[in-house]
Each structure stands twice: as C-alpha cells, then as structure tokens.
C-alpha cells in the first residue's frame, strides 16, 4: 500500500537543544488509522503538527501523498488536511453552517455549494441540519460541538485527518458514542487518520496501528494485537498504567476492543 503520510528521520529541537522529536521515521498507509500514544510532553502533538506544517521540523522530511510538504504552500496543504482538536476551536461568532463551510469559503467556493456541503456534513455527523445549521457553538453540548468540529474537518473532503485528542474532554458515554460514529464514518469514507490520544481503549478500538512515543523517540509501531501482546517493558508499563485494576486487564481490554469491532 502506498503511504499517505511518510515521515523520514524527523527531528524537532527547541532552543536549549532539547529534542521534542528525535529521528522519527514512519509510513502510514492510505486509508489507515494510526493512533499515537505516549505521556504528555512525549511529542505526540508536535509530530501531528509537522504534517500540516504548523510545526516545521529541524531536520528530516514529511511527505503527504508522495509530495514533500516543505515544497507545498502551507495554505493549500492545510486545506487538503482535516484538523480536529480537543476544544474543537469552533468560531463563536459563526453559526454551525458557517463554521463548517469556512474552509470552502476561504477557498472561494460559492454560497449555495457551501451551504449544501455543510448541511450534508452536519447530517452525516448526526446533527440534523434543519435544527443545528443556524445554532451557535455556545448553544451546543460538548459532544455536539465535537461532532461539528469533525464536520468542519471534512468540509473540503480531505484525504487526511489529523485528530489531536478529539474526544479527550468528553464524558465516557459521549466519548464512546463519538468513537462509534467515527469508526462508522471511517468505514464509509477512505481517510488516512493520525489520531493523538491518551486513551488506550480508544486507540485499540479505532486504530489499525499503534505508535508509542517517549521523549520524542519512537518506542513502538505495532498492530493493536501486537501491542497488547508485547512483552516490551515500556509497553507493558503503559498498559499497566492504563488499567490499574488487575494486571490481566490488558488482555480484557483487547478482547473488549475486538468485540466492539
């Protein structure tokens, strides 16, 4: 499978010589979902942000669909890549219709096309357009806002979705709903997804590959099954930390994830 995103020897240093990313190489197949795990400060978000050039690496290169991103204008690159973050970042002064259609508006698409597309997408993410199109972000619940954030990321029909802890701020039930919806959506649309998460269950449920970072270094790049079966002390420690109740829970969580699949 041709990689949709390829990182080659990627490093990112901040002034006092600290490496936030340390020589990372990864190839993400088209249509795959890759979860990046790791503790806070391990470089997950920085890694994600090199893909749409919100962060410029110190050395190494990023390729998107075979093209070096350093050679693409950041504006056109970003319009081809969907971006979802935890706080959603919906614009408080725009209703959902305008929020979702904003990328198309920036691209100079006509009003009727924007409205049609944003209504379609709101329906797709489970927000009935006739009810929600005219609402403002502050009139929504956290889960609804997250759905709208996802709709906005899909507006320009990007091949790639970058998701930075998209469901991190939601209660467990809403989070599970959102995970189900995303999984269903990704089953229907062919998107390459890079998902930063703290939630091991979420990673096992959604991803077909799991990457573990520590201090900017790539510690593991495995399938979910390989990940939970791994005897690597680093990975075992991570899984144990996630499931404090009973060491056998790691197996149980993998089974759970399998069942939800």
């Amino acid at each position: 499978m041709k990689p949709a995103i390829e990182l080659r020897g990627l490093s990112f240093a901040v002034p006092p010589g600290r490496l936030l990313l340390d020589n990372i190489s990864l190839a993400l197949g088209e249509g795959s979902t890759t979860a990046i795990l790791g503790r806070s400060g391990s470089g997950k978000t920085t890694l994600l942000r090199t893909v749409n050039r919100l962060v410029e690496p110190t050395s190494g290169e990023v390729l998107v669909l075979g093209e070096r991103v350093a050679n693409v204008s950041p504006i056109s690159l970003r319009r081809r890549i969907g971006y979802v973050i935890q706080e959603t970042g919906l614009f408080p002064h725009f209703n959902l219709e305008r929020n979702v259609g904003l990328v198309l508006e920036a691209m100079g698409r006509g009003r009727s096309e924007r409205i049609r597309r944003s209504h379609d997408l709101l329906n797709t993410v489970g927000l009935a357009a006739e009810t929600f199109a005219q609402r403002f972000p502050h009139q929504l619940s956290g889960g609804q806002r997250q759905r709208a954030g996802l709709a906005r990321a899909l507006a320009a029909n990007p091949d790639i979705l970058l998701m930075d802890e998209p469901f991190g701020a939601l209660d467990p039930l809403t989070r599970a709903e959102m995970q189900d919806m995303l999984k269903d959506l990704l089953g229907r649309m062919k998107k390459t997804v890079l998902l930063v998460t703290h939630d091991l269950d979420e990673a096992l449920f959604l991803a077909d590959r799991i990457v573990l970072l520590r201090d900017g270094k790539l510690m593991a790049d495995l399938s979910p099954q390989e990940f939970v079966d791994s005897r690597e002390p680093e990975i075992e420690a991570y899984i144990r930390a996630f499931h404090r109740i009973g060491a056998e829970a790691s197996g149980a969580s993998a089974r759970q994830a399998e069942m939800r699949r």
Partner: protein
Amino acid sequence: MTSGFLTQYGGQVATLTIEHLWLTGAAMLFATLIAVPCGIGLTRRPRWAKPVIGLANVLQTIPSLAMFGFLLPLPWLGDRAARIAILALTAYALLPILRNTYAGIRAIDPTLLEVAQALGLTDGQRLLKVELPLAASFIFAGLRTATVTCIGIATIAAAVGAGGLGELIFRGVASVDNRLVLAGAIPAALLALAADTALGLLERWFMVPHARELSR
C-alpha cells in the same frame, strides 16, 4: 428674555455645533485610519507594542491648551486654526483606539487563531473573518472613549480660533455671562452623549451574534 437669548444666539449655536462636529469627526476619521491598522500591526510585532503605546500615552498627557499652543507656530498648519485643531484632536484620539485594537486582538483565544491557521485561512482571511469580528467590541469601546474625549477637548480649540462650541464658552467666561457659557457647554455635552449612543448602536449592529445573545 430666554426666548430673546435663543433668537439672538440660536443660529450661532447651530453653526458652531456643526463646526464642532466637523472638527471632531475629521479627527476621529484620521485617528481611526491610523490607530486601527497600527494596533493590528502591533499584534504582529508585540515587541513594539510597549514603545508605541507608550508614545501614544505621552501624547495623551500633553495639556490640551499647551498642545494647541505648540502647533500654532508651525508652517502650513498654523495658517488655518482648524488644521491645528484636527491634528491635536487626532493625537488625543490615538491612544484609546490603538490600545483597544491591540488588546482586543490579543485577548482572542489562541486556539481559535491556531485553528484558523490549520484550516488554511490566509493572513488576510484570518484578520477579516476571525480577528476583527472577535475584537470588535474592544475596538468600539476605544472609539467611544476617543469620541467623547475629542468632543470635550474640541471646546478648547476655540482658544486658537478654530471655532466650535468652545467659542461661546470662552466668550461667556470673558464677559462673565453664564448663559453664553451654558449655550456652549450644554450642546457640547449633548453632542458627546449623542455620539456615544450612536456608536453604541453601531456596535450592537456590528457585534458578533454570540455576544449579542449573551448580553441580552
């Protein structure tokens, strides 16, 4: 007697009010055209913010009578008193507009600016679609403060012969005629109130919908 006073001075009050309005309006226009772009520029180069806002602050501290006096001997400017008045009033209006434009944009949640960038908005689109609408209430507050200040200070412009309602006040003081003082002062105060109200309405019209809803 009051009606006699009105028939005698009514026309003059009207003319001077219009003159007053013209001085203030021209100064506000110049100040806005200078201070809003400057304020936006400072958000791009925050290191300059302190010295530039500091300079505007210094201008603000110059006593207005002294300011008019300083400008009087200057070539070209000194030829027409209205030019001096407009320049001085512009200087006084800069600070509130500049400071509020800068503060208003800086107060925007950085996440939103990052998202604007991540969505692929150009710098111009980010300014027009995100930053200015979200900072609008701050900027309008600055415009209102500047307008009210300018209308007050414009009364002093009469001291250099620039006209405006100050002329009645100065004449009233010189001839110890309180009616003349009030004939200048009351319209000036009403003008300030009216301008503030008008800008307030304009602000509501411009205001971003979520804020309008929250302030209901």
